[in-house]
């Protein structure tokens, strides 16, 4: 019992530490990609190839003066960035980083599970539930700042996030129907046994990807913080590490979403013809973890690439896209999948 709890704590600290560190370097990656897209060099002064830049950035964040304006709603103003980062982090509880199940590498009489909370059979629902809480951070930040632009940003984001949650939830239903389970690990195993999700659910993948961009407030859907219209959006009044937390939360969301895309549509740890769920031992476990990480990295790079490729949407177009395009498409995808399944399985 105690050992279990200890293992759990180790896993949690590992995940938190790695993801936080990853975020720091993701910012560097983003800046490099931005520089590439704009035909610049990018940060290259701190350390070799600018590799120490994230550390310096972090130090700067911590050392800056933390300004809290006196007209803000203080409790909520302080609560908002924490909410953002917490909701972004706890989603990782059910994400499998590698193989999960009885075939994992054995350590101290038990297989290691590359997942903080194995055996939760409603993994996807959990992630959606947690993801739906992410809106609080933004809307409360906007409200508590007591600032016209922040407020508008918060209002915009709440409408945007609620709207895009619907098609996002519906787009994965096709995969859920195919697999017959809400457990992320089962979904990966089904894909390794049969075929990657993107091949059987291309429309679902497409809708999910677009909604993921909107849910993470990334370009071309970063309306809540669009600089030209709203100064800085909901985080205009924030400074220092509170601002850093919003930044962190955004990148954590990107990582979560990338994991989801990889798990749902790109087979998770699966490499065709190489891996399957029956393999045991450390070597295969490491291969699987690496495969998963690689795919997630590619996905993150894709997200950043899109940022420097597409211009921002107008707000009414954004809502129209959700309600008039995405939702009908998602419903059609679901109905067609269900019908075909019923016909095939009888």
């Amino acid at each position, binding site marked *: 019992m105690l050992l279990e709890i200890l293992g759990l704590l180790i896993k949690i600290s590992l995940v938190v530490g790695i993801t936080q560190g990853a975020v720091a370097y993701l910012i560097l990656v983003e800046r490099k990609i931005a520089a590439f897209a704009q035909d610049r060099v990018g940060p290259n002064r701190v350390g070799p190839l600018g590799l120490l830049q994230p550390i310096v950035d972090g130090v700067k964040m911590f050392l800056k003066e933390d300004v809290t304006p006196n007209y803000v709603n203080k409790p*909520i103003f302080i609560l908002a960035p924490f909410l953002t980062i917490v909701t972004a982090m706890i989603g990782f509880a059910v994400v499998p980083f590698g193989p999960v199940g009885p075939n994992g590498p054995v350590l101290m009489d038990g297989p290691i599970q590359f997942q903080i909370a194995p055996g939760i*059979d409603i993994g996807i629902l959990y992630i959606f*539930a947690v993801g*739906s809480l992410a809106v609080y951070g933004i809307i409360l930040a906007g409200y508590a700042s007591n600032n016209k632009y922040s*407020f508008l940003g918060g*209002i915009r984001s709440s409408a945007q996030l609620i709207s895009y949650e619907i098609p996002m*939830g519906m787009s994965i239903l096709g995969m859920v129907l195919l697999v017959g389970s809400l457990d992320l690990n089962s979904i990966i195993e089904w894909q390794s046994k049969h075929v990657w999700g993107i091949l059987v659910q291309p429309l679902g993948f497409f809708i999910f990807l677009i909604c993921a961009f909107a849910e993470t407030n990334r370009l071309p859907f970063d309306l809540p913080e669009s600089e030209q219209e709203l100064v800085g959006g909901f985080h205009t009044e924030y400074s220092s590490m509170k601002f850093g937390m919003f930044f962190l939360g955004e990148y954590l969301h990107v990582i979560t979403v990338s994991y989801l895309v990889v798990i749902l549509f790109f087979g998770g740890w699966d490499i065709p013809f190489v891996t399957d769920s029956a393999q045991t031992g450390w070597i295969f476990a490491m291969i699987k973890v690496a495969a998963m990480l690689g795919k997630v990295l590619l996905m993150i790079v894709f997200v950043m690439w899109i940022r420097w490729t597409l211009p921002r949407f107008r707000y009414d177009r954004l809502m129209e896209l959700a309600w008039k395009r995405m939702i009908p498409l998602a419903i059609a995808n679901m109905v067609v999948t269900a019908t075909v399944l019923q016909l095939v399985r009888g």
Partner: protein
Amino acid sequence: MFEIQPLQLIQCLIACLSGGVGTYLMMPHRRQFAKPGLVFAIGLGLILFAAGQLMMLGGSPTPIVSKVFFNIFAIASVVASALMITARDPVHSALWFAVVVLSTSGLFLLAGAGFLAAGTVIVYAGAIIVTFLFVIMLAQSEGKAVYDRLARQPAQATVTGFILIWCLLIVILSNPGNTYFQSGSNSSASLAPRLIPAKDLVNYKRLTATNPTYMVMGKTLTPEITLPDTIQATLPAGIPQPHVAGLGAAMYTTHLISSELVGAILFVALAGAVVIATPRVGGESS
């Protein structure tokens, strides 16, 4: 039938009294004798005390982890709801309600209703409360309106509410099944059918003991086996519990019509909300 233990009765009364006084003190009202902040703090303390009494009343699950989490969620939900109904700022109200929903979801999770827990968070916390916040922010951006700082007849309301709570608690605690299962004896076995019909008991036993699967619309399903403890003790262990699949099967077979009706209601509400909220062109409302 009034089979409540005197100790429980007294505990109940103390919890209700302290809770009632605490709630009354926390209510937004005219205060002349003390600072509002102090009164609020005293009320909150009383509420916490009442919640603790309540925890002692009801008992809690046996495994230690579950016990801890159960108590955390229960106290959080009770205290958060008390704060919700007394908050001056409606935005705070909504946020406290979000806390209530989250802790209730935790309780759902502890009762084995994981799907429902996630669903409640998605629907309530993710959509309904956000919409409420949205409207509050549009309608009234600061909690300084007169009607938010002045409750309507707080004393009468609190008394009514806590009489209701007290009655409910007495009814719950004086449940005949309560004494039957707590004593663990078969002395009042004749009362058992009030909890679960004898016929169903036999069926459950037969199903779970001899035939662990049964057919629903051509699909094989494992029966749910969560039963009152005395009966459950006699059953073979290790039969897996279907969760979402079982819920879905029950929902779309036994409760099919209800599901359809709910869908219809949802559709009608959608249309109704659109019609009501759309501003009339050239009408009196902006």
